[in-house]
């Protein structure tokens, strides 16, 4: 199952003709960060993707030592649950993404989890605290640089 079906992609391309690539990537098109909220709003209000499924952030350390992050968002359409809409954002070491909380209340804890584990900050989130780790934890465990056996306060 493609991350984005052909009809949805055609509608998205029609709405944002100059900003999106011609072909949809099977693993989800890469969308510019400043269009993130606009794409989500278009999918929700015009195409009926009203269900927020998940957001997944991943860490991609580069050969030159800098950090890149990729944030994938998945929506679903309740009237036809087999159809998903997924897109990706590629961001640099600043690791900041606008929040989708004003559009989808379900984004609240999902974004807190990704902030906690990967360290991507969702700007505009009303309550961006740690979700999984203790409140006084330092570091973000799912970064590639967070080796499992290196000491990390407050534990080891």
């Amino acid at each position, binding site marked *: 199952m493609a991350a984005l079906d052909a009809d949805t992609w055609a509608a998205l391309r029609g709405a944002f003709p100059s900003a999106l690539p011609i072909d949809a990537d099977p693993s989800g098109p890469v969308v510019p960060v400043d269009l993130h909220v606009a794409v989500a709003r278009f999918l929700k209000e015009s195409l009926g993707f009203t269900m927020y499924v998940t957001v997944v952030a991943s860490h991609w350390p580069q050969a030159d030592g800098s950090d890149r992050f990729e944030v994938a968002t998945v929506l679903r359409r309740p009237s036809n649950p087999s159809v998903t809409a997924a897109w990706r954002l590629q961001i640099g070491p600043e690791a900041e993404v606008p929040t989708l909380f004003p559009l989808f209340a379900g984004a609240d804890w999902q974004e807190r989890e990704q902030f906690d584990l990967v360290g991507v900050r969702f700007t505009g989130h009303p309550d961006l605290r740690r979700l*999984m*780790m*203790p409140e006084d934890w330092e570091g973000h*465990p799912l970064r590639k640089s*967070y080796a*499992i*056996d290196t*000491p*990390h306060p*407050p*534990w*080891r």
Partner: protein
Amino acid sequence: MAVDESGRPYAHPLYDTLDHFPGLSLATTSLDRLLSWSATNSLWIFPMATSCCAIEFMTSAANRVDIDQMGAVIRPTPRHCDVMVVAGTITVKMAPRVKKLWEQMPEPKWCIAMGSCAISGDFYRDIYSVIPGIDTVVPVDVYIPGCPPNADQVLVGLKRLQEKVELHRRGLVPARDGRPEHDKMIDPAIGRVTDADRDASTTEQQLAASRDLGLGGNSRRASDTPSSRQGGVDEEAT
């Protein structure tokens, strides 16, 4: 026909605490022995169930093994219970909560570490967020090894706890149980972290960090070998 009771196979605990009078439906015993007997047979259990051992613990309360036969009732509140069964991995975030619930239980109270995660952290032990055994947080009386231990082993562990409670009621100090040796507690086909495989300084550092959480516990040292921890009457009162 007279019944010879000297060789009877069934030794109910009450038989030893009662004095029988032939021809009379009357028995006397000391109140202390009666209380001791009732204490060992009404261990109410607070299930501190965090992961898959909890499922196996549920089966020990089901009808095949049925720990109810020993008066062990499972109550989901610390204030009613005598025994805390820690069934599952305890993380750094969970450990203060476990300690808090332990402190809410009325004295006298006992703790059972069920399964290799609660005993030592097992193969999650090297993960940044897992504590190396619940005995770094609360004092543990009985260890039930296994991954997970089956329901019969839970019954055996409860039997062992009953022995300790009985000794405790008589004013004796039972021997402290040591952590089971890893090769006896797990499936040898699965590679796991053992104390012997590890750098002793790492274990010491990890246990020191556990003590720095300020939670107490048995404060086991890494230099303790399994053999030195097994058996013998402990000087410390439990």
